């Protein structure tokens, strides 16, 4: 026993080296499969075929088709972010402050955890099965209420249909993130406001919403980024009929269109830029929110 104890101090030195070896795989992995690819894109956006630094790739972004693709993406992401925030907030408020039984709150949070991951191809299929031409709800509305959805011009394979589908994972994400913030609203604040003469509405206007707004705005940014990068759902739902930015990139990569890798770089770079800014806004606002509610 004494020999192993005495030898421990000496073993400390190689141990330090060994520790570095412990984290090395991670950094190697991150470099090879995260940092380098991203850097390649970011740098490639500013290089032409000869390897010279240029802005002409970014110039290609100004082409009308590309511009409109980005514009549609931004519209879609903004719409689903705002609606996701609104509806998610109402549901979260209902389960935290609405006086509903606790098991219901837990059930809804669990469901939100699952639903926020239920994106992509299966989600698109589910919505086609529900609101497609022969979908469950479409048929229901026709047979029970006499409402002809498709006759009125509705189509699930459209901007609106895609937005409706996106909400399925946007709203739960909002619920998951904003519930802790709502539960952080201390009961005493409301009571203090009441004792000082404030009505419920005044409490919300003067105290609760101001305290919540960094979280609300931050989550809006997060939802925006979330929607912007989504592509599998769109492809499965609309094929390539709706040109959103990720689908244009997808086509570029696959070589479906005239293969111009530098356009691909530019589009990818613009996407990274937008999502990075949105995420930065989210993080900054979250730090602000946490500072107040120590």
């Amino acid at each position, binding site marked *: 026993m004494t020999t192993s104890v005495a030898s*421990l101090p000496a073993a400390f030195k190689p141990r330090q080296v060994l520790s570095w070896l412990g984290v090395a795989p991670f950094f190697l992995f991150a470099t090879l*499969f995260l940092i*380098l690819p991203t850097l390649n894109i970011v740098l490639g956006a500013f290089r032409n075929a000869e390897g010279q630094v240029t802005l002409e790739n970014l110039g290609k972004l100004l082409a009308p088709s590309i511009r409109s693709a980005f514009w549609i993406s931004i519209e879609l992401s903004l719409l689903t972010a705002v609606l996701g925030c609104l509806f998610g907030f*109402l549901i979260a408020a209902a389960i935290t402050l609405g006086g509903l039984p606790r098991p219901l709150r837990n059930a809804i949070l*669990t469901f939100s955890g699952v639903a926020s991951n239920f994106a992509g191809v299966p989600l698109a299929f589910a919505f086609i*099965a529900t609101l497609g031409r022969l979908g469950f709800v479409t048929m229901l509305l026709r047979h029970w209420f006499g409402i002809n959805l498709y006759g009125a011009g509705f189509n699930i394979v459209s901007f609106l249909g895609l937005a409706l589908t996106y909400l399925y994972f946007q709203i739960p994400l909002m619920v998951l993130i904003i519930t802790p913030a709502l539960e952080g609203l201390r009961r005493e604040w409301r009571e203090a406001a009441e004792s000082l003469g404030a009505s419920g509405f005044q409490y919300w206007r003067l105290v609760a919403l101001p305290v919540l707004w960094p979280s609300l705005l931050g989550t809006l940014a997060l939802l925006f980024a979330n929607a912007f*990068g989504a592509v*599998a759902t769109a492809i499965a739902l609309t094929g390539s009929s709706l040109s959103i930015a990720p689908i244009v990139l997808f086509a570029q990569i696959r070589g479906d269109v005239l293969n111009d*890798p530098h356009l691909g770089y530019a589009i990818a770079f613009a996407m990274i830029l937008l999502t990075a800014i949105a995420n930065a806004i989210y993080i900054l606002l979250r730090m602000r929110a946490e500072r107040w509610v120590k």
Partner: protein
Amino acid sequence: MTERRLWSWLAVALGGLYFLLPLVGMFDFSMRMQRDGYSFEAYRVVLADPQFQQTFGYSVVLALLTIALGILIVVPTAYFVRLRFPGLRPIVEFLTLLPLVIPPIVIVFGYIRIYNTSSALPLTGSWWGTNLLLLFGYATLSLPYMYRSVDTGLRTIDIGSLTEAAQSLGAGWARILAVVILPNVFVSVLSGAFLTFAIVIGEYVFAALLNVGSFGPYMVWMGGNRAYEPSALAVVAFAITWACMGLIQLFTRFSKFSTVRR
């Protein structure tokens, strides 16, 4: 008070309607393959389809390998950062959050540019290389969830004391990690594992752009060519996601009891 409760129930009811209808619709549609009433015909067709079996099996294997890789990379990292290099924490956390910031389509684009046939590591050139690339790509996508789960788990046990106790008894690093640390964060690792499984099973973008025949592209192909089978597939995918989440909940609740007893 009761007026508030009325509005709350209304909000929950409307939300419930929106979220349950697609599930109902998906299930209903999947049962309608036979013209005369409900049947599991679509499921029968799908499950018997050799392509389904092949792609689904392939995705399952891929998911399991991703989980294994994820554990091998994340557990030692989280452990050493916590124990020895607390200063590295912000960097590591930033890196683990990058896959959530950078859209996956951009990441796979980067892979194709770097690891194509004319580069130093021509992974896309061979079957083995492409699958390896896909594996690492999925490990990257699941990194945030895996790291967060494991880190949370490590936070609850005193790894400093456990390590010193093991060292004083003569254990080396590998043994410490495998025999002392891993079993104690088993539940957290499982959470991360189930999330990874759910992500990998239905993943489309990586697989499609790297031309791999996994479950995701198979589903999209079905969506373009069949009417009823896609809904059945969606039900299967949804059931798997639910099962994964459900198992996470089950295991976390199970572990609460075991830690209390300790």
